């Protein structure tokens, strides 16, 4: 019998690696819950939720997210639990982490 060539719709990174992760937990991105798996970086959890951008640039206010994936380019800077300028691609996600879109250098005073 010839098997039709087709893409397996269930093919995923986790399926490929035979992953049996510990229980998922939530972090939040701008207040909305985003699931994360134990060991995933903040950037990985955001990518898994189709979020590719979590800061705006200082000069032109343009959206940016992870680029080099190994901590060398600094494009993935995020504000996590109020602390700005953390490299999301290196930072392990922890339950309850609140990621907020970082604007500019992240040090602008909150407006009253």
């Amino acid at each position, binding site marked *: 019998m010839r098997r039709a060539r087709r*893409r397996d719709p269930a*093919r*995923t*990174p*986790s*399926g*490929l*690696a*035979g*992953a*049996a*992760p*510990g229980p998922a937990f939530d972090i939040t991105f701008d207040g909305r819950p985003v699931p994360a*798996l*134990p*060991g*995933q*970086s903040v*950037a*990985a*959890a955001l*990518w*898994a939720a*189709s979020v*590719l*951008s979590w800061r705006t*640039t*200082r*000069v*032109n206010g*343009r*959206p*940016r*997210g*992870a*680029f*080099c*994936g*190994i*901590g*060398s*380019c*600094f*494009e993935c*800077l995020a504000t996590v639990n109020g602390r700005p300028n*953390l490299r999301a*691609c290196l930072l*392990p996600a922890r339950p309850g982490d609140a990621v907020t879109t970082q604007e500019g250098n992240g040090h602008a005073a909150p407006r009253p």
Partner: protein
Amino acid sequence: MPHPDPDRAEVAVVGAGPAGLAAAVTAADAGLDVLLIDAADAPGGQYYRAPAPGLGAGRPEALHHGWGTFTALTARLDRHRATGRVRHLTGHQVWAVTRTGEDWTLHALTGPDGGDGAAPRARRLVIATGAVERQLPFPGWTLPGVVGAAGAQAMLKSGLVLPGRRVVVAGSGPLLQAVALSLARAGARVPALVEAAGYGAYARAPLTLAANPGRLAEGVRHRAGLARYGVRMLTHRAVTAVHGTERVEGVTVSRIDRAWRPVPGTGRRIDCDALAVGHGLVPQLDLALGLGCATRTGTDGSAVLEVDARLRTTVPGVWAVGETGGVGGVQLALSEGELAALSVIADARGGRVPARAGTLRRRRRRMRGFAGLMGTVHRPGPAWTGWLDPDTEVCRCEEVTVGAVRTAVAELGAGDTRTAKLLTRAGMGWCQGRTCGFAVRALTAPPDTDAPPDRRPLACPVPLAALARAARDEGE
């Protein structure tokens, strides 16, 4: 077993990727006291980057090639760690190496935010710091969804995630085939692999190819895999525009000539929601340059460390292995790690160099030949800057445009990257020019100029407190 001097070793290996691992375990096998120091929490470097333990990957080998070699190395490492012969410092980012009497002092950052430090010492130093991806800018490359090809691979290997469902892979170099295949196997649709060079160029060096049948077989295997997943291979083409406002919606792929100049009217749109792009790898030399190790220009135009047949750099007591001597792949890195360790052992213990060294030297020569060919084939053509728009950002951190750099050159007389940087701030931001350095150099120097490598006193960002602590320790 308590160690006689926990802060000192006979040899320190910086970097626990393939080359560093091979060097560390080979040296330890001969009884040397080894310090293996690495920024990551687990050995493997970028090549053998593994899913985080919490992800419980039952088949990590599915994301890799040659996983058996890696597990054999880590098993040897574990045995040496257990006896204390190898001390493996994980999560230690070395930011500078200085001379302290007869020893090298390795200044490293530790702790979750680099707030702590360590400064172990060693008599001999093996630099195995690997490589980073080379990026060339193009219109739209700052849009979310455009990610490094190696970056996408790293995020997939460690976090089991994809940047999108439909991902175009583009740039130059054999790494792209591995990336496209990984993304496809993990479930992404990869409509095209866009390669700026042409693979026909390899055929002009039949002897080098014949001497490296493993690389040929790998190429054939990759092509077959790509065909199986319906990935179209487009050569002599480049992504010359990205479409979308908030994120990638598609790319324009144009034909380019031998000099990498886009051919007008050849642009074709491919819809996608992510673009994984990279133009090969360049050696990561910050530590070596800080030590004063001499470099030469590799066949791909990037600076590589000058080493002799025993992998000694021009600085006595410092060896360099793997990609730092020119990007050549994992098999070369493994061989060089082992060969350098044999040289270190001879230096520390004297005696005859084992016959094994001769085998490794021949293997190295053969694979260096292939690496040189690879560099020549995929070296960016001098006219690649022809696909830039004046408002394309070249420096992503400081948002400096191509137009600004060209103005600095044409009207303000900037003839080198340093002047361009002072006039425009290109390369002055967070990443310190690690992403844009190659492009800024191409815009400021005449094409094909082999400029000296960037020198940075610190190999990574260092908190002021850590600098102050290091200065205080030096003063003692």
